[in-house]
């Protein structure tokens, strides 16, 4: 054993460089991931070599911290390895741990701080240096060099040993983490294999590194089969693109992934699973995904069946709803009408909204908008019944409150329990007078020339809500040029916004330059609903009395006897307004209606056909034309012959001609008032 002692400076520098190189080499090995045991052996050997000592050793604190296990013993007899030494500070190793720096004893003979360890004593060690491995409180152990002669250790030597201890400390720390990780990984896998879910992990490229026993038994595959990218082979062909697409996208962004898809089971059937994966990080570095899949087949298929049932009912209800609404609104002389019906979005339920318009025998127009409480087929069917009832009552009852009261009676004594909100309104086109009853319904909106306002009167509870109930009606006069908007609450009701605000919004949206009603309806729906499909049905009816054309009538009517009643009212009103006497009004009306009657009876078979009536007053003379598309010149019945005789007898001039495959009757009569003038 050479006692290496050099006082010359170049030697000192050379020794220092060698020691640094030795530490660097050890550090490289540690960074390269060399096992801790190997590093410990190397550290001991290197230290003995570089410091020129006979022995070197590495001691590791035992778990309870009371002893030091000899992990490496360079130069010592074989029996030293594995010995557990005292960690008490009355011996050098324990003292080194407490002092937290390298401790040197040139000669144990003169040492008062501590004694040599048993191993040192047995080996005949005279001089030693020891350094703690690891920081205080987290010591791994001690590294020491020993000489059988008195030995001088320089400050450089102490630095060197401390540096070696630091490398070992870092390596030991890492080894401890790896061990903990291995334990947790093993624990995870054990847990995973017994868990009733299908677990998996991937690497950073998204390739599967592990699946648990649950996955394997569910899919019937082998562990090796599932590793890498091949797990997607079990995904249903129809779902593969979706699964791969969403997985790649989430993986690239390192975001959590969740998807429901069909996966092949061990029996070869596909079942629905929901699969969730989250990115995993270790020390801030992304290391892959960990995920779990759960069999949701029963829930999913039940959902599917329910959804199919709901969608089917939704579609039937929507069809029924549409079939019950007027295919097109009636053409009513002197009135512009437009309507919209938007069924609720698929997934939501069809309600029982409806609207209707009809001309009453007294010449006023009855308008109704209603909303049956409830959804689906039954609501749509109830809506159909109520609509028919309104058509019937609307014709015979003058008072809106009475119409609504009758409806209430019908509903409350009926077999079908039903409740509906209803706005029923009767409009006089000539005077702009409206009478209305509002049974639990949102108020109609009037767009008057000076701005929008709601008709807030005539309020009562919904139809069917109670019996008996007092139904009220209110009367108002619309300013000329006003437009009336009737609607159901689907247009204005949203859960998150108070109704008052929605009404304000509607009124605001309705403001603006006067446009035709079709445009107005579109504008309102766009403004209030936006692009969203409504969550509830929406019915909207817009009505605008046209400026009274006092000097002419032009109307196209269905070729059916019922058209005559309305035509008669209209002609009668027109003639009175034109200054005709009562007798003149009757006779001219009769003449025109006889011509119309011929058109209805002889011009057509059953089906949708129309005839046109025009009447105009010019220079005190009434000129009227009735035009159809059939030929009724032959006198097929005696009373039709009388009809023509009546026309000829009551009018000053009559001309019956065939024109374009139809018959045109032109009539003129000078009014008495004009004759007298």
């Amino acid at each position: 054993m050479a006692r290496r002692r050099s006082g010359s400076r170049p030697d000192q520098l050379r020794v220092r460089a060698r020691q640094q190189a030795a530490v660097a080499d050890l550090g490289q090995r540690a960074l390269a991931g060399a096992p801790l045991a190997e590093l410990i052996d190397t550290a001991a050997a290197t230290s003995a070599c570089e410091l020129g000592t006979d022995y070197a050793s590495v001691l590791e604190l035992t778990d309870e911290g009371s002893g030091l296990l000899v992990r490496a013993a360079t130069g010592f007899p074989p029996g030293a390895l594995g010995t557990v030494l005292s960690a008490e500070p009355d011996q050098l190793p324990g003292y080194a741990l407490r002092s937290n720096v390298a401790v040197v004893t040139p000669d144990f003979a003169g040492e008062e701080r501590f004694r040599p360890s048993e191993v040192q004593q047995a080996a005949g060690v005279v001089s030693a240096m020891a350094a703690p491995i690891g920081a205080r409180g987290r010591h791994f152990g001690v590294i020491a060099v020993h000489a059988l002669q008195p030995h001088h250790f320089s400050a450089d030597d102490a630095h060197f040993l401390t540096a070696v201890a630091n490398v070992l400390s870092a390596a030991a720390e890492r080894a401890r983490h790896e061990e903990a990780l291995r334990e947790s990984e093993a624990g995870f896998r054990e847990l995973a294999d017994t868990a009733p879910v299908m677990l998996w992990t991937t690497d950073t490229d998204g390739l599967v590194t592990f699946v648990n026993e649950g996955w394997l038994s569910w899919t019937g595959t082998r562990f090796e089969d599932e590793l890498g990218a091949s797990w997607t082979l079990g995904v249903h062909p129809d779902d593969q693109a979706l699964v791969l697409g969403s997985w790649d996208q989430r993986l690239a962004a390192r975001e959590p992934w969740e998807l429901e898809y069909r996966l092949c089971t061990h029996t070869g059937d596909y079942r629905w699973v929901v699969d969730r994966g989250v990115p995993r990080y270790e020390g801030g570095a992304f290391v892959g995904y960990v995920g779990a899949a759960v069999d949701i087949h029963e829930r999913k298929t039940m959902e599917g069946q329910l959804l199919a049932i709901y969608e089917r009912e939704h579609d039937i209800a929507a069809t029924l709803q549409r079939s019950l609404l007027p295919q097109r609104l009636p053409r009513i002389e002197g009135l512009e009408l437009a309507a919209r019906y938007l069924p609720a979005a698929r997934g939501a339920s069809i309600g029982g909204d409806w609207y209707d318009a009809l001309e009453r025998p007294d010449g006023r127009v009855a308008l109704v908008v209603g909303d049956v409480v409830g959804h689906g087929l039954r609501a749509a069917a109830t809506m159909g019944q109520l609509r028919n009832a309104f058509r019937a009552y609307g014709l015979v009852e003058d008072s809106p409150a009475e119409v609504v009261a009758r409806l209430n009676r019908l509903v409350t004594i009926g077999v079908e329990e039903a409740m509906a909100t209803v706005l029923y309104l009767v409009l006089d086109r000539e005077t702009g007078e409206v009478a209305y009853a509002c049974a639990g319904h949102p108020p109609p909106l009037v767009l008057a020339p000076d701005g929008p306002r709601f008709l807030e009167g005539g309020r009562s509870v919904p139809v069917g809500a109670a019996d008996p109930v007092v139904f009220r009606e209110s009367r108002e006069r619309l300013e000329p040029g006003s437009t009336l908007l009737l609607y159901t609450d689907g247009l204005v009701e949203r859960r998150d916004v108070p109704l008052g605000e929605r009404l304000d919004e509607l009124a605001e949206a309705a403001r603006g330059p006067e446009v035709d009603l079709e445009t107005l309806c579109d504008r309102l729906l766009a403004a209030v609903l936006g692009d969203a499909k409504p969550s509830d049905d929406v019915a909207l009816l817009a009505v605008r009395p046209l400026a009274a054309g006092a000097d002419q009538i032009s109307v196209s009517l269905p070729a059916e006897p019922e058209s005559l009643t309305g035509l008669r009212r209209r002609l009668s009103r027109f003639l009175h307004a034109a200054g005709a006497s009562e007798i003149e009004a009757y006779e001219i009306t009769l003449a025109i209606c006889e011509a119309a009657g011929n058109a209805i009876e002889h011009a057509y078979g059953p089906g949708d056909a129309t005839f046109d009536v025009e009447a105009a007053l010019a220079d005190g003379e009434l000129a009227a034309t009735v035009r159809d598309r059939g030929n009724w010149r032959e006198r097929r019945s005696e009373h039709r012959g009388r009809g023509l005789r009546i026309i000829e007898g009551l009018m000053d001039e009559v001309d019956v001609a065939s024109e374009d495959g139809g018959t045109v009757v032109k009539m003129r009569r000078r009014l008495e008032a004009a004759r007298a003038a």
Partner: protein
Amino acid sequence: MTSPAEIAVVREGGAIVAHVTGDVDMTNAAHLRDELLSSIPNDALALVIDLVRCRYLDSAAIEVLFDLARRLGRRRQALRLVVPKGSPLTRVLELTEVGSAAPIFETLDQALAQ
């Protein structure tokens, strides 16, 4: 939409009086005829149709008047009409010569006095 008309039938001695209110046209004329025929017992001598409050008659309604007159005539029962002076219906009834089948009186009393 059929035209609104109401008939009130009252027995006045040997005659049946039918007060017709409203409009009679091709939509309800046949119904009017059936109602009147079924309300005349065999022992009645005459049917008096009171048109004082009738506002509208068209050719179909006039056809019904001729038909009624024919049917009642076979049963030896008379049909009489009441149309007040100045009624808008007057000229139409003249044009169609309804009076030839059913005599026209200006008041109900005159019609019943026959």
